[in-house]
């Protein structure tokens, strides 16, 4: 009889119901590896459903405020760097590719490529987080962190940086952009709009922050997979953890595929950096 605290791999003694497959990774509650893999994959999909609901709540709130403070959201969008955002999109797509290759390697029992692709995925993930960190730091420098707890407090209408008062001055940017397209927006009005970008930045940090948090979790997952892969745990008959890690990683990528246009691209002023 098994004890209740046996590990998953040490459970073969617990198998009262004999089955033809006696895989060391078969947990006691399952009858076969197929059932185990089916349950695990299905469970992962259900989990991703909860993630969709969680991000969904945030996306909905974002869209509601976007409608309410449209000019401010446009101005906020314009102030974040689309080139860094685009680079990050490429990085993530590349990491999805390496992850898919990792799953394939596990499936076909290629241990060395598996380890290599996992490492590549982690490096790309780290690059993404690094770029994100740089973008965050720029926003910190420009006093675009919402609230008045971090940095000097939110200020999007200039005067934040002593050396370079123009830095992060969204009000000034609105005025100049209007000028280019032949309209005139007086500075006081532009300043009102700039003040309202605070909510845009709240969502920017929340959405990208929650996404980055998921990336970090993903990287931890990768580390664990890497250790197991090096030990040679995975092969054609058992690679569920790699597959689930892949599902999770792709999901996180897809979230970014929505975040990027929503935050960086739509309604952005033409010609802005």
């Amino acid at each position: 009889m098994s004890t209740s605290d046996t590990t998953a791999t040490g459970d073969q003694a617990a198998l009262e119901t004999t089955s033809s497959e006696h895989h060391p990774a078969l947990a006691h509650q399952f009858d076969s590896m197929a059932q185990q893999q089916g349950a695990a994959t299905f469970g992962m999909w259900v989990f991703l459903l909860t993630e969709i609901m969680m991000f969904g709540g945030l996306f909905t709130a974002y869209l509601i405020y976007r409608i309410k403070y449209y000019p401010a959201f446009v101005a906020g969008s314009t102030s974040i760097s689309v080139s860094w955002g685009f680079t990050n999109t490429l990085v993530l797509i590349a990491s999805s590719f390496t992850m898919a290759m990792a799953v394939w390697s596990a499936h076909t029992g290629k241990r060395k490529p598996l380890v290599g692709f996992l490492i590549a995925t982690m490096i790309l993930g780290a690059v993404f987080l690094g770029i994100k960190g740089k973008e965050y730091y720029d926003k910190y420098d420009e006093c675009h962190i919402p609230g008045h707890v971090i940095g000097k407090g939110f200020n999007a209408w200039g005067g934040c940086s002593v050396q370079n008062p123009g830095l992060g001055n969204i009000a000034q940017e609105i005025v100049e952009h209007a000028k280019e397209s032949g309209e005139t927006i007086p500075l006081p009005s532009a300043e009102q709009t700039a003040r309202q970008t605070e909510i845009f930045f709240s969502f920017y940090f929340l959405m990208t922050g929650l996404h980055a948090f998921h990336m970090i979790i993903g990287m931890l997952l990768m580390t664990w997979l890497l250790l197991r892969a090096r030990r040679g745990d995975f092969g054609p008959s058992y690679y569920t953890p790699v597959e689930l890690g892949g599902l999770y990683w792709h999901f996180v990528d897809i979230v970014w595929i929505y975040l990027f246009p929503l935050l960086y691209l739509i309604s952005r002023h033409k010609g802005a950096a």
Partner: protein
Amino acid sequence: MSTATTAIKPIMPAKHFLNDNYGIRSWLLTKDHKRIAILYLVSITFFFFMGGLFAALIRLELLTPQGDLFTSDTYNKLFSMHGINMVFFFLVPSIPATLGNFVLPIMLGAKDLAFPKINLLSWYIYIFAAFFSLATMVSGGVDTGWTFYTPLSSGFLHTHVALMAVGVIFAGFSSIFTGLNFIVTVHRMRAPGMTWGRLPLFVWSNYATSLIMVLATPVLAITLILLALERTFHIGVFDPRYGGDPVLFQHMFWFYSHPAVYIMILPGMGVISELITCFSRKRVFGYSFVAFSSIAIAVFGFLVWAHHMFVAGISQYSAMVFSLLSMAVAIPSAVKVFNWTATMYKGSISLDTPMLYALGFIGLFTIGGLTGIMLAALGMDVHVHDTYFVIAHFHYVMVGGMVTAYLGGLHFWWPKITGRMYPEAPAKLAAIITFIGFNLTFFPQFVLGYLGMPRRYHAYPPEFQVLNVLSSAGASVLAIGFILPAIYFLWSLKYGAIAGDNPWQATGLEWQTTSPPPTHNFHEVPVVTTRPYNYGAQQEVTVVH
């Protein structure tokens, strides 16, 4: 009931999940769903009595119209902590995490849930969340009310709102993991022959509950994360001073919290389906209608959240849509009540303790449900919204419904869980005391509410006193009804009669194994060949290997 058992004296199995292993490690590191169920049982019982203590203090304060026992801040903390502890730490996990955890895999003929480690993890997350709740209480409590409405909670209160919010978020994750586990288990772990049409109704209702847990709870998490950030960093999402919309918080909060009341009541309905059939010795009347009404409740439950906001400044037309949809959610509940009643028709009814609770449930839930229709009716809601009428309605469903069903289920499966019977006479007494005490406590509150007494009032105009005293008197009776089972359940652990495998002669796979069950639930994999609740048939389940 015991007269029906055979002359053979029931014996305790030599080896079962309780004596399989000893020591604190064997409990804290267990992956056995039955042990985890017991861990949950102990934890939620703690929160139930703590929440109950707060309730008692509230009723004590409301004996007199003047706020003379506590300061208003203390009173506000009392009702907030009562609500938060009861809702998030007792009601939401109550049946799914204890009875569901224990019997659902056995009912399916599975050796365990699909993910035993995640099941244990969910308990640890619950305990982690519980520490946040306790830390909040120790450091002075929180006075937001369980609804955390902004901008009061985000910018005006000086208590540990963020701490409590984090606790509730984690409690939410714990229930997400339970729900996820149940869904996968029901889909993938059924014994041979256990088709969807043969699932016990308790499984159906827990499945519907799990759907809500998985789909709604993440929204609560993100809402409370926003609230905690709003409070800590003043990000302006819900605070009108920074351009945020406080009513959006209500939308997001109720998007979870309305479905959440179905998280709380659906498993109770599942228990009732088991009890009514067993103690009437009848197949359930209209199996598929009862089963699908659970799913219908879960689905409709997502579309009615704004009926909490009819006077909150939403547009009149959206109020009408939500009112109409709220009417729709009443129908599946009515279908259930009618089917339960019809199940008893021409049955062979015995009034054992679980059945007493089940009958109490039907009556109280009917009143709770119908007053729910009153609240969903727009013109009516304007007057009774945020009054004691709402409190009474809510408690009829949650205490009269859910807690009653929980106690009924606990009595029903107690012999399965522990291998021993509870003492019947004090149990019947407790059931009756609970029923009387409950009605004494909460019926006057309907009248109070219609008279216009607002909820969350520390002091109130003197003309409301008579009804408040009645309610407080009832609460003391109710308290006895809740303390009694705690005593005799503990007593029965040592002195209760040996129950035997199937003391109720019930159908269902959980009664085919020993009491208490072995660690892997069955000695041989059961094969199901017949419909559920096959009472009146000679042999409902053949065990083959």
